């Protein structure tokens, strides 16, 4: 069964450093997303990406964040100058078309120290 894969599973970084979280969506999917989940809280939308550009982003997704699909398979989330409050699980998701389920990866646990 096709799945969304994310690497690394756990990333520890020092405050102020840049991190890149990587995702490989399902190959024939067209829409890609990043979500985050702070421990014990709900899953929060960050950004959606379609046709090689951001289609929607939340208030959380400020200038500190950027996304890229550099090679047609990987979908990355870059967080510049990380802050302690960026510590969370980050989930990548992909969707084949509109009104279909989003498939989620297993997440990357980001810990900023």
């Amino acid at each position, binding site marked *: 069964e096709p799945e969304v894969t994310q690497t690394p599973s756990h990333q520890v970084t020092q405050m102020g450093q840049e991190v890149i979280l990587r995702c490989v969506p399902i190959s024939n999917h067209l829409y890609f997303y990043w979500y985050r989940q702070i421990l014990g809280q*709900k*899953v929060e*939308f960050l950004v959606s990406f379609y046709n090689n550009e951001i289609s929607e982003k939340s208030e959380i997704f400020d200038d500190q964040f950027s996304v890229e699909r550099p090679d047609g398979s990987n979908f990355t989330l870059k967080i510049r100058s990380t802050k302690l409050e960026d510590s969370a699980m980050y989930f990548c998701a992909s969707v084949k078309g509109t009104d279909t389920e989003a498939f989620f990866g297993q997440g990357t646990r980001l810990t900023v120290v």
Partner: protein
Amino acid sequence: GESVGLHLPTLSVQEGDNSIINCAYSNSASDYFIWYKQESGKGPQFIIDIRSNMDKRQGQRVTVLLNKTVKHLSLQIAATQPGDSAVYFCAGSNTGNQFYFGTGTSLTVIP
């Protein structure tokens, strides 16, 4: 100060009983809904979906009910099993692709 621990509503049921998990949404334009199950340390896993032109949809041991009048969604799990213990989220979409998640309910099945 720092908050620790879960902020989610909780539900405990005996093994074999039926579970009902509720969700309310605020955006009346939402037209597609999904229930996800999330086990500890894992990503959300699709359970069942429903479109706004339906009131009810059934899967294997699960039923989703949609009441658009009061903007309420419920997930019913029949004959709940220990493996059903997880956090359950509803997610709604009004653009056809982006999903907004509810706060989740932590279900504990007591053997």
